[in-house]
Each structure stands twice: as structure tokens, then as C-alpha cells.
């Protein structure tokens, strides 16, 4: 009897052991069902990004209008594109615009962030003020700057008038039209770089500055040796974001100058818009879009690789 009890206990405990030995599910194992977690994102990524990208490339090799996609034309759209002087001019205009805006946005944003990185009420007010323009739509921004730039009775013309001078013809001069658009764009976009820099500056531990103070560093030495290297990554990020954004200039040019005078302020996106949606030459519009895509890619990659290399050195 006693033996029976013992053996039943042994049997029970060995069953319990067997149950414990069952391999636990390895939650890190690669399993297809895990893909469900990223499926919603993957769906939108594919339908909104990958598919249009491939379709755009496919379209750029076809003759296409609003009635449908016609025959395959090979690289004919690209040949037509690069023999179009207006397209080449719009590429040049866009590069000029990027050169006008990105360095100013990157440096002015840094300057504002450095100046306003303090815990005073006036700094908080100014931070909000400089960021507030970012929330405006392009329509409002261009309206404001048209009021400033418009000849004869604009704000600028009025101020020049007080000194008896003729105001500069920002919107109608071939030399100044792109500069006018750049000024409006910088005013509109300065908030984001400033905020990115501010968040980077606030992540630098205060003790490093205290150590630098004990190390006899003056303000310039502190800035150059402590602050700048600490925000290097943010600087690269700001330049990358701005290069990508400013290459896509459209609204400001469309609303302030209509690309004029004489196409001197026409950017690539506006060229694409004119070709695809005014002349309904969708194939050539798609080809121009692909050129813009490659240009942005090259600029962003070059920027990234150059700064990374320098950082490693």
C-alpha cells in the first residue's frame, strides 16, 4: 500500500517534470506571423510609396495622357526633356534656390537656437514667435510676402519711398525673383531647424560646460569644442531635411511669381506641373519627376557620405 502511494507520487512528479520540459515558445524566433505587426505599415508603404515610384518609372518610358497610357517609347521622354531649355533652366533655378535657402536655414536656425536656449520668458516668447510661421499654409505665407514685395505700395516700396528711393522690383526682376522666393521660404521654414537645434542643445549635459569652465575655455572655445561637436548629427539632419524639402519648391514660386519673369524662378516641380497637368504630357512629366527624384537622392546621399567621412576622421 505504502509502495503504491510512493509510486503514484513518483508518477505524478515525473509527469509534472515532463510537462515542465515542454520547450517554451521562443518569442525571438523568426516566424511569419510576426510580419502581421508591420503589415498595416507595409500595406501603406507599398501602396503609397513603392507602387507609385515604380509606376512613375514605368510611365516615364511611355507616351501617356489623360486618356490612358499609350505605347512604349523607350527613353524618348528623357531625350525630349534634356533638349528642353526650359527644363534645364528649371533645374538650374532649383539648384540656385537650394543654395540660397539651405545654408541660411541651417546657420540662421543654429544662431536662433543658441540665442534662445535659455530659461527666460522673453526667450520662450521669441521661440514661439519664430516657430509660429511654420504653422502657416503656403498661401498665407506668399500673401504676406507679396504684400511686402509688391511694387509701388508694398511694405518694402513704402520704406524705400521714405528715403526717396525706388524699391527693388523683387517679384518682377529676373535677378531678384528667386531671392524673393528664398526670403519668404526662409521666413516660413526657420522654425523646424531652430527647434531641432534647441532639442539637441538641451541634451548636452550641463556638467560638460562646467568642466569646460574649469578648463579655462572662453565662449568661443566652448562653442567650437563642446557645443558644435555635440550637435553635429543634428546639423547633418537639418541640412538633409532642408535639401530634400527645398528641392521640392513649388507653392511659393507658383503663387508669388508664376515662375517668371521669363522662367527665371520656375523650379523643377513647377515644370513637372506645367508639363503633366497643363500640357497633359504625363509621360514627360513622369520623366522629369524621376530626374528630380535622382537629384534629391544624389544630393542627400552626397551630403550624408561627406559628413560621415569627415566625422570619422
Amino acid at each position, binding site marked *: 500500500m505504502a509502495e503504491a502511494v510512493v509510486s503514484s507520487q513518483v508518477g505524478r512528479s515525473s509527469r509534472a517534470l515532463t510537462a515542465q520540459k515542454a520547450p517554451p515558445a521562443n518569442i525571438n524566433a523568426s516566424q511569419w506571423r510576426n510580419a502581421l505587426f508591420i503589415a498595416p505599415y507595409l500595406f501603406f508603404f507599398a501602396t503609397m510609396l513603392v507602387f507609385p515610384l515604380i509606376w512613375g518609372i514605368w510611365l516615364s518610358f511611355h507616351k501617356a495622357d489623360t486618356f490612358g497610357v499609350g505605347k512604349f517609347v523607350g527613353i524618348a521622354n528623357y531625350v525630349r526633356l534634356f533638349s528642353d531649355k526650359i527644363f534645364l533652366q528649371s533645374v538650374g533655378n532649383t539648384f540656385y534656390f537650394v543654395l540660397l535657402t539651405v545654408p541660411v536655414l541651417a546657420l540662421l536656425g543654429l544662431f536662433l537656437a543658441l540665442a534662445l536656449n535659455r530659461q527666460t520668458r522673453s526667450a520662450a516668447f521669441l521661440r514661439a514667435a519664430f516657430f509660429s510661421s511654420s504653422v502657416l499654409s503656403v498661401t498665407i505665407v506668399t500673401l504676406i510676402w507679396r504684400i511686402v514685395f509688391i511694387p509701388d505700395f508694398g511694405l518694402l516700396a513704402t520704406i524705400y519711398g521714405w528715403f526717396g528711393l525706388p524699391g527693388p522690383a523683387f517679384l518682377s526682376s529676373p535677378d531678384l525673383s528667386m531671392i524673393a522666393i528664398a526670403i519668404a521660404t526662409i521666413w516660413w521654414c526657420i522654425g523646424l531647424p531652430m527647434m531641432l537645434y534647441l532639442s539637441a542643445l538641451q541634451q548636452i549635459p550641463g556638467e560638460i560646460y562646467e*568642466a569646460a*569652465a574649469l578648463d579655462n575655455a572662453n565662449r568661443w572655445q566652448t562653442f567650437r569644442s563642446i557645443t558644435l561637436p555635440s550637435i553635429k548629427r543634428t546639423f547633418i539632419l537639418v541640412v538633409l531635411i532642408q535639401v530634400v524639402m527645398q528641392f521640392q519648391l513649388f507653392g511659393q514660386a507658383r503663387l508669388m511669381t508664376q515662375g517668371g519673369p521669363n522662367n527665371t524662378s520656375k523650379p523643377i516641380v513647377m515644370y513637372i506641373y506645367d508639363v503633366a497637368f497643363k500640357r497633359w504630357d504625363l509621360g514627360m512629366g513622369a520623366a522629369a519627376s524621376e530626374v528630380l527624384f535622382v537629384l534629391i537622392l544624389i544630393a542627400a546621399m552626397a551630403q550624408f557620405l561627406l559628413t560621415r567621412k569627415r566625422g570619422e576622421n
Partner: protein
Amino acid sequence: MTAHIEIKDVVKRFGAATVIDHLSLSIDPNEFMVFLGPSGCGKSTLLRMIAGLESVDEGTISINGQRIDNLPPGQRDIAMVFQSYALYPHMTVADNMAFGLRNIGVAADVISARVAEAGRMLEIGHLLERKPGQLSGGQRQRVAIGRAIVKEPKAFLFDEPLSNLDAALRVRTRVELAQLRHRVKSTMIFVTHDQIEAMTLADRIVVMNNRKIEQIGTPMEIYSRPATRFVATFVGSPTMNFVPVRVAGGETGGATVTLGDGTQVKTAIPAMKLDPGNFTLGIRAEAVRVVADGQGVTTGTVDVLERLGERTLVYTKLKDGSVIVAEDIGYSRVAVNDTVSLSIDGSRVHLFDTSDRAWHCEEGING
């Protein structure tokens, strides 16, 4: 060149809160001074005031007779090691150490010689080209100390430099710091809340509590003659036993105190200095021994045993309910709930009156 630091009547306020209240202190040349106290007692603030990282609201701080509290931190000729090390993350170890010297225009060959020497002294010579992110906590700590050494300052300030290290490394670094201070002749001020660091490193300890100094003295003075009940509580492990006692008075020689359970203990504290009345008896565990039955002055019931290896701490409850931690040998045979006999060494006790004044045993008085 080493520093004699004189702090006179300094006050520090943050808004309405006073964090240092009319504090004076003199630190001798080449002295290793430790500021010891609990969090928020003002010890780090005092150190930062000496460094120039906090302003002084009242009073003066001077080094070798020259007032420095109005100078910027870099011009005070002092170096500081921060709790978080505060290394420059994008500079190599060598650049971290050289930065302060370059800023004041020291010649490049002098800089490289000093950096190499510090690297050799701290055994980080092979790490000079690495960045702080590639170093372990202990190595970063050495770089931070190296950065201070190369400046050859008049005084070193350490702000809880060991608290970010794990226990084993902390003990090792503590020993190395003790060795370092003999190699580097300079005044050193070390802030800590760890009484073991204070006891092992200091020439003198400043025990601070609640914005003011409780006691200044050598480690053994602080340990054996605590000026206040706070010092007695804060220094020493386990914490000193405190038992309410009565002093009858009318004696000559050592005072006899009566514990709550009626036990009388003859102390070496001069009776004539004491007014009769209620006191608190302070006595460390090492002065209360577990002895053979009937040989002690009192008995207690064992509540808890802590076996530390070389000794055993015996938490006993006396008949009146008061708890005393006694000491026994490592292989103590005592068990929980045993009744044990306790001897009390009357020549190693302290008395505190209700106003926190302390009386200690004196030589020549029989305890």
C-alpha cells in the same frame, strides 16, 4: 604649490531656501579633507562654491590668502572630478586631458609630456587615442582624474567620484585614490555620503547636516568622540545603539547610568560634569559583547542574527523592550530567541542630553 583654503562665514541661498548657513572652515595645505553628510546637507553646494560653479551670497573664500570667490572657475587654479566624470564625449582621452592646458596656451611638448605622465601614473596610457564612449566606467573615472592631474592645480575637488562605480571597483579605486594622494602633493577636497570612503581617505572629515557643520575632526575623533547624536548615528556601521538612561548624580569619578531594565553601568564619563536626569546612552556594537551566562551586566533575547564572517551582530531585546546590537565571534553559537548575557564596556560609551550635547569617556576615570 599647494593650497590653504579659507572659507569664512559663507551663505548660499537658492531663492528663499538657505542651503549653506554662515559656514566657516579652514583646510590646510596638502590636507585630504572629506565633506561627509546625507543628501541635501549642502556638501556638494559648498564644493561647487569653492570651484566657482555656484556664486557665494555672503562671506569669502580664499586660497593662500588671495580671495577667489569673485574669480571665474578657470582662474582659481583648481581641478574638479565630477560624479558623472563630465568627459568631453567627442574628444579622445588625450584631448580630454589636454583641453584645459591648450586653453591657457601651455606649450605642446609640455602638454604631451604631462598627458603621457598622467597616462602612465593612472595606467591608461594605452587608451589615450580612444573616445570616452569606448571606455568602461572605471577607465572613464581614471581619465577624469587624469584630466585633473595634468593641470597641476593647487587643489583637487572630488564630487562623489566613486558613486557611479560598482562595489568592487569602488573599493579598488578608493585604495588607488589613497595611493594617488601621496604621489600628488596637493590639497584635496572630497565630497561623499559614504562614511567608509570618508573614514578611509580623509586626514580630516567635515560632517555636515542640515546646512551646517556638525563636527570637524580626524576619522578616529569623529568615530570615537562624536560631537552630536547625528554624527554618532551617521558614522559607523552598524549604527550606534541608543538607549534611554538615567543618571542619579552625587558620585565622584565615573558616572553610573541606569538602563530601562534597571541595569547599572559604570562609565568613564566624569560624573561631576553631568547634571542628574535623563540621557541617551550611545554605545557601539563592538563595546557590547555576548558573554557566558551570568558574566554580563544584563540579559536580552536574541531577535535577529547577522553573520558577517569575522564577527556576528546579535540584535537583542532587553527586558524593557529597548533593542541593543551586540557583537559576538564569527562562529557564534547563539540562536534566535536565545537569552544571552551581555557585557557593556563602560569606557567606550557616550551620553547625549536632550539638547544633543555629547559627553565622552575620559582617561583616568574608571569605567
